[in-house]
């Protein structure tokens, strides 16, 4: 059945419509792949159905108050639709994304620092002890001090996110530089490359797949730190949204916020991966 659908439609209208037909085939095979993926969601569907049953029939039969603590998927869907329509969800989402983005711009300084540390022994020996002490401190442990430094607001939030992002990017950049095949560096020198060209054309390029991995991890850790920072010190953002809803016992709003955090985190990760594959088609590590 499926293979029949993949084959281009043969018949009377073949020759002039070659290009659109190829497009059509591609779209069709994409749809087929989507359908082939659907059976993987069986488990998820069962969980959602069980949840729906538990929240709307089973829990209310034991104690009506318990149903409030665990909103049904149908309730969550309605709430989500309402929050999307009113723009509330988008408002908080954009606030969070803005903080993530500004923090990333600062955390990207880990890339040049990591290259310097990976390439020059002296820089590594001097800077590494500082980093080794700072790195194990969880970003959340910085919250009290950062509130005193920056007060409550964007800067404090961004500082916490920055801390979450910085070290994964730094560590991966250093590893990326150190793992470059030394023969590539020799080959470049042997072809007449001066030191700055070796750095720009070989070291940076060679470390790029690992740097992108670091950025992926960093954005993920930053996203987690972001929500925690917003729980404490913000009046907008997804973290604020779910904490604010708690005080009003709006478990449905909390759940929508949590799902939004999960979905957007996943989308950010997928986007970086797709970008890596697009930019570095030669990298076998990223093509997996």
């Amino acid at each position: 059945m499926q293979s029949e659908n993949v084959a281009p439609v043969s018949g009377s209208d073949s020759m002039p419509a070659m290009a659109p037909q190829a497009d059509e085939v591609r779209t069709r095979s994409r749809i087929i792949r989507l359908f082939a993926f659907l059976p993987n969601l069986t488990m998820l569907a069962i969980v959602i159905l069980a949840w729906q049953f538990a929240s709307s029939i089973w829990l209310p039969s034991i104690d009506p108050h318990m149903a409030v603590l665990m909103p049904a998927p149908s309730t969550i869907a309605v709430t989500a639709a309402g929050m999307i329509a009113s723009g509330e969800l988008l408002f908080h989402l954009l606030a969070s994304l803005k903080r993530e983005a500004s923090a990333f711009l600062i955390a990207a300084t880990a890339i040049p620092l990591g290259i310097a540390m990976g390439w020059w022994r002296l820089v590594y020996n001097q800077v590494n002890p500082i980093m080794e002490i700072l790195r194990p401190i969880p970003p959340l442990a910085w919250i009290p001090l950062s509130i005193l430094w920056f007060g409550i607001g964007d800067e404090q939030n961004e500082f916490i996110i920055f801390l979450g992002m910085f070290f994964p990017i730094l560590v991966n950049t250093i590893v990326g530089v150190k793992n470059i095949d030394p023969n590539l560096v020799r080959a470049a020198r042997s072809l007449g490359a001066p030191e700055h060209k070796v750095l720009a054309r070989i070291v940076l390029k060679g470390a790029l797949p690992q740097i992108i991995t670091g950025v992926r991890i960093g954005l993920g850790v930053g996203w987690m730190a972001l929500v925690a920072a917003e729980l404490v010190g913000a009046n907008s953002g997804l973290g604020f949204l779910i904490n604010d809803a708690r005080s009003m016992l709006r478990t449905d709003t909390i759940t929508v916020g949590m799902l939004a955090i999960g979905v957007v985190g996943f989308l950010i990760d997928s986007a970086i991966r797709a970008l890596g594959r697009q930019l570095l088609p030669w990298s076998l590590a990223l093509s997996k």
Partner: protein
Amino acid sequence: MGQLVVKNLSKVYGDAGSPGSVAALRDVTFEVPNNHFCAILGHSGCGKTTLLNIAAGFEPPTAGSVAVDNVPIRAPGWQNTMIFQDYALFPWMTASQNIAFGLEMKRLPSHKRMDITRHYIELVGLDGFEDKFPHQLSGGMRQRVAIARALAVQPHLLLMDEPFAALDAQNRSFMQDELVRIWQREPKTVVLVTHSIDEAIKLSDCIAVMTRRPGRVKEFINVGLPRPRDEDDNSYLRLKRRLRDLIHDEVG
């Protein structure tokens, strides 16, 4: 352009005389005339790669010197370029970008780079593969890219470190013939390191047989056989036997 003179070359790793030090080369002296193909033949660990690394400018000698046209080699550069056993192609560059890299480093204008790259793609037989990345090419094809990349910068001295060791027997023999063909079209002073007697005879004008560590030149042999070399020819077999005896002494 490209007379190689190796004079009283010694290399010791670690402090000379201290217990941990290793003497890799001792008093190596030989000459390779311009545009001659010379093989360094020896067992692994005889210091032949060390010799190559010094000639490429990757390592300083402990004593003595390596000079091309009376200019001592002190640093790596296009004048004394190297071809590696593992090809060392830049994975993020296509075949033609790899070949053009050295030309770019020489700051040639882009139309010249393109012309030269084109020429070497044709010379080494890479037509149709110029836009492939290294991971899309077979071992033999990768070595062609590496050869083209090294020849493109017009080195005075071309160094090769067991360039065909990673290939299967059939491909190796084919690539050896290809190398001779390319070298005859564009003669260069070549120093090739190998542990294969056949490879040394098939390719070279002269062969420096190395002793065990610390490596010295045990014998310097001018091959003097007509090309293409015939493996069944009597003088080929005689030379092969002689080299085998020389090498064999070094095992026991």
